[in-house]
């Protein structure tokens, strides 16, 4: 596999088999990453790449994407695998000095307001090796100011070479190098300078709107720079360790498979993005199901009435219009640190589809418990409401460590009476009770009064009832306990609920 880049895309005759091999490996890796690639799609991809010029990397990418990726949420995973497999192709992406676009003096001195020293530095090294860090920063600043993509790419390359400190064979992930490079570039300071420049340029100062726009513009460029740096690091890592090894380490889970409890910051963002279309889809699906679901019970009177036209034979049975009851939902969520993210997503999801239920009431607890329904009422922005839940709800009783037993007891005393036969209670939490009393009788009582009691646990099933987890003790009194580690499982549960 590693010699494939050498065969390259340039020689069409010999490259056929190598390309086929590479594509096969690529598709296997896509499947490993969780994308459902069928055999037909595989064949389509093979056919598609015959119709496009192979040296056009973008076209190649789109051809593969169009045939292999049929869900936009999978795009990122695809892109990562693509970058790993094909990052060494195409002249402008080659690693090393010869193929790299040179930092030419002309590129950088377009404005003529730079110290002459830089031009000289470029002249001899050709790749800016001789620049001092200050000069490098200055060049980067100029490139950002003008939004010059070619120079930005070259600067990213240079920065990685200089700051990442990559050594062959070192078993360190790409994020480490990224962090080192970015720390040295001091992008926050760069932003500050750019904004200052923008303010100085404006004759009578910037209005807030203009300030905002300038800021977004530079942010966009900085983001581009970061992506270039990331890509460059990836290229170098692949060159060092080979395609297969890197594909494994860089594999990104699909948004619906991200584990709530161990999501990184970046994964959290993609989770939140995935949540919105999900709620919309769920709402549509649930509404449809309600309308088209089963038929209602037999409508005897109507059937008899219609039977008159058949001489009294009930030939055409009539059914009542189905009116499935909308359940009333009580969400009782543990929002202590370990499971906070999970509680947040579930609350968001349930409130986003609140119209599918007759009423949604939410309670949150750590060792004290508080009703938070009021934050959601009259607030259109669910994100803001959840933020208020996290900051304003009164959930600490003694020490701020989860105490399910106490929280349940208080819940029962204050709101237990309001649970009725139409109520479905959903309890969210890992049931790690810090060895307090469980008070599982509350759940038992609840089940007597409520329609259903469900328990959602964000921990893998294998960890249940280990250590201080007592989910089993509560679980025997519930109608169902569900493992709910990612959006996929959460979606399945909500579907089941209605």
């Amino acid at each position, binding site marked *: 596999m590693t010699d494939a880049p050498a065969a390259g895309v340039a020689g069409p005759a010999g490259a056929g088999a190598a390309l086929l091999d590479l594509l096969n490996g690529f598709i296997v890796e896509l499947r490993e990453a969780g994308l459902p690639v069928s055999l037909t799609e595989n064949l389509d991809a093979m056919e598609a790449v015959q*119709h496009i010029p192979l040296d056009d990397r973008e076209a190649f990418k789109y051809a593969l994407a169009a045939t292999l990726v*049929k869900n*936009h949420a999978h795009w990122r995973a695809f892109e990562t695998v693509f970058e790993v497999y094909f990052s060494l192709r195409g002249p402008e992406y080659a690693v090393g000095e010869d193929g790299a676009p040179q930092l030419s003096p002309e590129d950088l001195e377009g404005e003529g307001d730079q110290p002459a020293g830089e031009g000289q530095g470029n002249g001899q090294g050709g790749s800016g090796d001789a620049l001092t860090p200050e000069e490098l920063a200055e060049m980067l600043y100029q490139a950002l100011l003008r939004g010059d993509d070619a120079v930005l790419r070259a600067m990213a390359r240079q920065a990685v070479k200089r700051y990442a400190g990559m050594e062959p064979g070192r078993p360190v992930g790409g994020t480490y190098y990224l962090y080192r490079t970015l720390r040295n570039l001091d992008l926050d300071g760069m932003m500050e300078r750019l904004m200052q420049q923008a303010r100085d340029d404006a004759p009578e*100062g910037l209005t807030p709107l203009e300030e905002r726009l300038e800021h977004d513009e530079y942010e966009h460029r900085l983001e581009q720079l970061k992506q270039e740096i990331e890509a460059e690091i990836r290229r170098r890592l692949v060159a060092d360790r080979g395609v297969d090894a890197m594909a494994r380490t860089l594999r990104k889970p699909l948004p619906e498979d991200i584990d709530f409890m161990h999501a990184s910051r970046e994964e959290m963002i993609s989770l939140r993005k995935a949540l919105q279309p999900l709620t919309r889809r769920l709402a549509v699906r649930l509404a449809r199901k309600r309308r088209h679901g089963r038929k209602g019970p037999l409508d005897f009177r109507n059937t008899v009435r219609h039977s008159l036209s058949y001489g009294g034979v009930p030939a055409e049975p009539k059914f009542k219009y189905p009116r499935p009851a909308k359940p009333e939902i009580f969400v009782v969520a543990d929002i202590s640190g370990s499971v906070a993210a999970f509680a947040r997503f579930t609350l968001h999801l349930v409130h986003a589809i609140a119209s599918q239920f007759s009423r949604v009431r939410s309670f949150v607890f750590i060792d004290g418990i508080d009703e938070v329904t009021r934050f959601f009422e009259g607030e259109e*922005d669910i994100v803001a409401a959840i933020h208020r839940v996290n900051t304003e709800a009164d959930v600490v009783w003694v020490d701020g460590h989860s105490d399910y037993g106490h929280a349940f007891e208080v819940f029962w005393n204050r709101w237990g009476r309001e649970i009725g036969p139409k109520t479905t209670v959903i309890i969210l939490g890992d049931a790690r009770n810090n060895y307090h009393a469980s008070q599982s009788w509350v759940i038992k009582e609840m089940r007597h009064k409520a329609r259903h009691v469900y328990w959602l646990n964000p921990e893998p099933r294998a960890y249940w009832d280990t250590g201080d987890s007592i989910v089993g003790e509560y679980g025997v009194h519930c109608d169902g306990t569900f493992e709910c580690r990612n959006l996929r499982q959460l979606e399945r549960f909500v579907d089941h609920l209605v």
Partner: protein
Amino acid sequence: MTSDALPSDEPRFDSVGDVRERLRKVDYLSDEGIAGIVYLADRLGKPILVEGPAGTGKTQLAKSVAEVTGARLIRLQCYEGLDESKALYEWNYKKQLLRIQATRGEGETAGWDEIEDDIFSDDFLLTRPLLEAIRAEDPVVLLIDEVDRVEVETEALLLEILSDYQVSIPELGTITARQIPLVFLTSNNTRELSEALKRRCLYLHVDYPDMEREKEIVLTKVPEVTEALADEIARIVRSIRQLELKKAPSVSETLDWARTLVLLGKEHVDGDTAAETASILLKYQSDIAKAVKELASNPQGVRTGAGPAGPAR
């Protein structure tokens, strides 16, 4: 594939660049991905499934492609409850009845088989969009709009057409396409489409355009706008789309906004104008409030070392 049986098999486009160029002539500004996939669809003879947020020009793409290829656009608008008789074909029941009665009236003693053959013939067939596209002699582009609105079961109706370009009618046999039409399916992603359907299509996700392209689109579609104003519009819209909103402004809303600004005679958008006309870009009160607030505030903490920036509102 079934393409070998079809007479007209000339590709419609020479290259990806050609697609782009010709689309541009009818004022559709495509990007590399869109043009590339249209080109591939033509070469591979496969339908395109276009997905993306509302108002990003999915339907317009099909219309524009029809225009540049000189093809007739046949459109099937999907909705809940769409069925065979509305999508594929239907027997003209009344005409069949008439025919039977007429035969009886003439006193002829036509045999049962004869009549049956007669009334299940082409004359009594009402073609609906899908069948029409298959039987068309002239070049056509078939647009199946908002395919996510039909139920999962109804999707199956489309499968035969999409993979083999044929329709089976029990009484008549199988009708195969005389030419492979370009097929576009659009979806707003309100539900997951079935695997079977996706497998048969090329997938194209049309997202909001990047700033440069949006500016170009504004300039092309609203000729009265000045370059500077278009630039400002595109930048503001980009900033708004970065906020977490219920519904981000679509391209068509951007264009409406641009037209409004031109009508109002604005050469330049300042904070007040943006706030006053935000209701054209955004359709939810909470979104408008949020956008107005965000745009007027300094990003991420005020860092105005150089004195107050502009008049405070």
